[in-house]
């Protein structure tokens, strides 16, 4: 995970009052993203004018949010926060050039559920509301029980995205399946379509509803915060963290080195606990990595390494084994 792709959106203004005002309105109307290039150019020009009129002012280089390096006078720089339209545009577009992938080593999971807690904290969820959860698994009556962290599988052929009537849930170019709760109509077709039960619904007012009311914040589709009543929520592969060049919340929180996360294009994944970076292809090959319910054709972006030589004992038979007769 390198390639710093984050950019700091900055507004630039002319010093001339009249011009300044109209330009600011122009900026507002078209949103920061679209206008940044024009603003950068104009800032250069007006900076030049300013210098001619008033003498020297120190120039600094800034990166516009369409990734252009421009120079503006330092005293013309204004602080700017990303607005909703900007967040939506960049959230739907995704991080160019990446294909995010997760590897979960089942032999290391001891069900600490730190991944769950970190995720719930970041996304403002109640203790029983999950983007990721861990399951006590046993595939057959005589097979070994194991713990399985289960995030959204971020399928490359996602059934949830197919059935969504309003494009509220969508697949990004970097492989992440996101949910836009500003668009979601709450029909829950995606939940019915998901064979991994990966999605949750905000049946009531969200956990932090009061805080949202006291301190309104723009909706960030990459964090799905603020959560909204009557809409879907789901694992986002921590798209906001990836934009900041950091590992997802769950991956970093794991104390047992269960999670690897990285970029398929680079064929590299980093362990969230040890921070060791390994080759994705080699990791999967050497450990016989597999994906969940391959037969359904969903093509997940989450790989599992089999629970071989598990590091932790599994005390009880899990109550979850679903097969009937042989259970006793």
């Amino acid at each position: 995970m390198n390639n710093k792709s984050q950019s700091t959106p900055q507004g630039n203004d002319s010093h001339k009052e009249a011009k300044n005002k109209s330009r600011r309105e122009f900026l507002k109307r078209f949103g920061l993203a679209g206008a940044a290039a024009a603003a950068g150019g104009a800032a250069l020009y007006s900076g030049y004018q300013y210098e001619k009129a008033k003498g020297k002012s120190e120039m600094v280089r800034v990166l516009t949010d369409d990734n252009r390096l421009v120079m503006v006078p330092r005293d013309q720089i204004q602080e700017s926060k990303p607005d909703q339209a900007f967040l939506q545009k960049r959230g739907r577009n995704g991080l160019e050039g990446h294909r995010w992938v997760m590897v979960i080593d089942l032999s290391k999971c001891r069900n600490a559920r730190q991944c769950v807690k970190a995720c719930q904290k970041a996304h403002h969820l109640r203790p029983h509301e999950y983007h990721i959860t861990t399951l006590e698994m046993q595939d057959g009556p005589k097979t070994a029980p194991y713990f399985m962290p289960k995030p959204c599988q971020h399928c490359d052929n996602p059934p949830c995205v197919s059935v969504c009537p309003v494009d509220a849930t969508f697949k990004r170019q970097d492989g992440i399946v996101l949910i836009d709760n500003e668009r979601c109509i709450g029909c829950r077709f995606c939940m019915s379509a998901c064979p991994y039960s990966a999605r949750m619904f905000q049946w009531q007012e969200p956990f932090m509803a009061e805080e949202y009311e006291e301190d309104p914040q723009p909706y960030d589709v990459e964090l799905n915060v603020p959560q909204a009543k009557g809409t879907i929520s789901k694992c986002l592969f921590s798209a906001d963290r990836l934009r900041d060049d950091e590992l997802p919340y769950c991956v970093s929180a794991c104390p047992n080195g269960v999670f690897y996360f990285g970029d398929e294009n680079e064929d590299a994944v980093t362990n969230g606990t040890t921070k060791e970076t390994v080759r994705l292809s080699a990791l999967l090959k050497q450990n016989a990595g597999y994906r969940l319910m391959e037969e359904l054709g969903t093509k997940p972006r989450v790989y599992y390494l089999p629970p071989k030589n598990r590091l932790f004992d599994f005390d009880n038979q899990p109550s979850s084994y679903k097969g009937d007769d042989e259970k006793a």
Partner: protein
Amino acid sequence: MALATPNTNQQFEERAANDIMRPVGLNIKFHAWMGVLTLVLIACLYAYYTQLRNGLSVTGLRDYVNWGMYIANFVFFVAASLIGMLISGVLGLLGFQWIKPIARIAEIIAVAFAAVAGLVIVSDMGRPDRLPFVFLYGRVQSPILWDVTVVTTYLVLSLILYYVPLLPDLAIGKTRMNHNHGWLAKIYDILSLNWKHDPEQYNILHKAVRILLILIVPTAFAIHTVTSWLFAVNPRAGWDSTIFGPYFLTGAFVAGCAALIIAMYFFRSNYKLHRYITPEHFDKMGKLLVLTSIIYLYFNINEYLVPGYKLKEADAIHLHELFSGHYAPLFWGTQILGLILPLILLLFKPMRKPLPVLIISFFVLAGAWAKRYIIVVPTLEHPYLPKQYVPDEWMLYQPTLTETAITIGSIVLVLMIISVLAKLFPVIPIWEIEEKSNQTTEPS
């Protein structure tokens, strides 16, 4: 067919028009009935208000069983509305004459159920205020878009198919209106579009109805097939079936026949229409119910026996729940009392008399509703991955009082629509009865 033995056609027509127009218009009984329905509806609307305020948490739905009673009820409504197409469309186009007196009742049922089906879906939405998004941002890949399209089309077609054959009756009715109902006569006058009983007008009418009937057959097939695809497109045990389209469609005909028989009985006795809706009609509808039930039984056997033979793990869990688990009483109750027993009983002629066939139809209709519940809920209770670390009440779905009340509200709304249409306008096409009497008596 011995409808009556009038001395002349003239007398017969006169009497038919009088008989059929007599119940039209408001009276104290109707006011009382609508008053009761309105009170119930207000209580149900309050339940919906609490749902709007508190979110869908007032229902028994949770993350595993994310669809429940509302969706089952929606499927049932769409199913019941198909009877309009079966009677007028299929049987009408095939040239069966006996359906004439009951075709309009079937059409009223179709309009009422199709209209409220849309509202039922809205009641299931987490954000009903965003309903316009379906039109603003609709994605054609989603079966919901197909469903919205075809249900709307079917509703409009059914409305036209109800209204167009009503034109001559409106013209007949406006001259016979009770003097208390001057306002209704005015409405008739406006709605009759200046109908003059001109042979040319009848000619156009027949052509228009024929085109509508041809259009309504594929539309009706589409609405229920697409409704079945809301389930069948999902990779889930119990829904993952290739025969869901025809399975739902034939089930719909069963439910619709039962609904029509109940409505026929009600209008016959309350509106004193014994002369026009005869025991023979009940006999024929009973036979039609047997036919549709046999086909539905055939699809049921396919739907349960084939996965039951293979017993793939997920299917095995699902079928186990239905056959001997949590849902066994409901499942067997539905299959035996709502399908197999009615089917056997109706094979005997005495059982196809009006009263027995009415009672059987109640069982069939209740079974049809429960069957939709069985199709929707158990599948969601058994996802592929285990259900863990969630509150106990998330494990099994239990509809709440609120959601039951909202569902009852939708049924009340259907009854209100049927009541109003059947009270303000004649429920039997007068002109078609007359036309038929002319045809049957002229040759002799």
